């Protein structure tokens, strides 16, 4: 049947895998956005920049840090170490951001949070554009994950399988943490009614700060995963964040599981569009957003607000 359309099963599976990878990034990023929005009522426009920071730090750790420290014989921080360090660094940086700036805006209209984080995103992106230009740097796939799996004419690179698996594990972990643990229940209570929660003796401001840090760390984690797949550039985040916003509009930010499922599904749909109608692949998610707005304005998993 596929041959009739001039599409081989190989290319279909290959695009499905690419779709799943994009979907994993959408899921990780929209998950972070949803968690942050739930507690802070801020749409974090800096999310794209924090994703870029994750990838950038990984690249710097491999290629630049040795020179900076003046260590001659190729001092490098490997990919796997960065998978841990980069999110921590970005998380810490984001906590500073929240403590010094974002915190002052909670009593105002939500729009100001969006505008502030937009400004911060511009500054971060501009700095890295100034230092490294807009041309992409490529990051090698770590040795352990080189090569791929050959199954009946199909080639599945190990690294891509690793990305999908890891992203799924982290997404599931976050879901489990929020929906099934004691700390997560406090987080949900904070989303529902922060004042009442504080009256019960929970340190809500601290929780808000940590949540922002964790949400941004998720973005940086996605950035590290993305470094060997996409070109590492200063502008890699800003292009992605607009698509992720569309994903968030489609899914609605009411449900954690909802954002994960929506992210993955939209990545796959985008991948399939690339097989059947390549011209439309870059706008497919936006078209779905328009359809959702027409037929289910509150979003697939959203509550009416």
């Amino acid at each position, binding site marked *: 049947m596929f041959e009739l359309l001039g599409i081989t099963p190989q290319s279909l599976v290959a695009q499905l895998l690419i779709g799943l990878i994009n979907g994993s990034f959408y899921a990780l990023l929209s998950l972070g956005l949803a968690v942050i*929005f739930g507690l802070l009522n801020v*749409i974090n426009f800096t999310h794209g920049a924090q994703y870029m920071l994750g990838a950038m730090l990984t690249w710097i750790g491999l290629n630049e840090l040795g020179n900076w420290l003046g260590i001659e014989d190729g001092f490098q921080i490997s990919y796997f170490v960065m998978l841990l360090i980069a999110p921590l660094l970005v998380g810490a940086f984001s906590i500073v951001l929240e403590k010094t*700036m974002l915190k*002052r*805006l909670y009593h*105002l209209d*939500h*729009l*100001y949070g*969006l*505008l*502030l984080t*937009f*400004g*911060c*995103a*511009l*500054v*971060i*992106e*501009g*700095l*890295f*554009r*100034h*230092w490294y*230009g807009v041309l992409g740097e490529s990051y090698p796939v770590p040795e352990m994950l080189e090569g791929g799996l050959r199954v009946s004419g199909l080639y599945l690179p190990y690294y891509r399988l690793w990305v999908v698996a890891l992203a799924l594990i982290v997404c599931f972990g976050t879901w489990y943490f929020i929906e099934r643990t004691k700390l997560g229940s406090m987080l949900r209570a904070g989303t529902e009614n922060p004042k009442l929660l504080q009256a019960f003796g929970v340190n809500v401001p601290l929780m808000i700060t940590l949540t922002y840090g964790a949400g941004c760390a998720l973005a940086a984690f996605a950035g590290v995963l993305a470094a060997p797949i996409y070109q590492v550039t*200063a502008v890699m985040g*800003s292009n992605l964040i*607009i*698509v992720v*916003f*569309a994903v*968030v*509009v489609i899914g609605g930010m009411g449900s954690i599981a909802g954002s994960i499922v929506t992210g993955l599904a939209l990545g796959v749909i985008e991948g399939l569009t690339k097989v059947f109608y390549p*011209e439309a692949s*870059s*706008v497919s998610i*936006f*078209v779905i*957003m*328009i359809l959702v*707005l*027409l037929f289910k*304005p*509150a979003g697939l998993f959203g509550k009416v*607000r």
Partner: protein
Amino acid sequence: MQTKPMPFGLDKTTIVILALLALVPLQSFVYDLFMMKVFCFAIFAMSLNLLLGYTGLLSFGHAAFFGSAAYVTSHVVKEWGLTPELGLLVGVSVSAGLGYVFGSLAIRRQGIYFAMITLALAQVIYFLATQLPFTNGEDGIQGVPRGALFGVIDLTDSTPMYYFSLAVFALAFLLIRRIVNSPFGQVLKSIRENEPRAISLGFDVDRYKLVAFVLSAGFAGLAGGLKAYVLQLASLSDVHWHTSGEVVLMTILGGIGTLWGPVAGAAIVVNLNNYLANLGGWSTITMGVIFVVCVLAFRRGIVGEIAHRLKIKL
């Protein structure tokens, strides 16, 4: 303290400023071209202010209207040989039509989602601009002829073009002020202040929002069309999200919900861009820093702050 209203709703401040602007071609400190660019972006920022300042809706995709009108105006003038005023008319109609489509979709959600939807929809226009044949991709439409106004007044020289831009700007300013001060504008403000109450008073809020959105998109298109004549160019940067962010910055810097704020903001940002254009990342960084400072410490904006201190309306 009721004073006798002047014709066309003119007041002293407006007359003085417009008269001063009319003198610009007679001296050589301020360049005509620079001022014309300011007029374009001032109209653009005023269009956004109509939504953000007076209706409380943040559109993060206004570049879509600005850019599409720039492209359409350039195309019809260059390829079909239309006169400038007709070109503008076509550009404005297209952007207002686009505004109707965007508006009907975006008003289905409130608050923060509204901004995200407009941003995402504008990205579709950006992709279209990179794909459609008539936009010439990366090159854009270059060498847009300024032509002759009504087929009579040649706009090729900078002085007649300056007065044409000034006239368009003055017209847009007075129109927007008329809209803001009309009963319709009062309803928009009531939506901004308290939407549920506006609904309970019996206003069809969604329809008011949609009309405001279409008007705003139309003015943004006017700005884009005029810009196509001034710089004789329509390019991808006109539809890029960066431009959407820039116009939000102009409005906030000048003062949300003030009439002159967007004009002042446009003048400052266009000036800054002139200095920083060749410095790569620095223009982005500066823009970002101004954003942060405005949002954190300076939410009234320049004109808003002056008006607040002097206790007057600007």
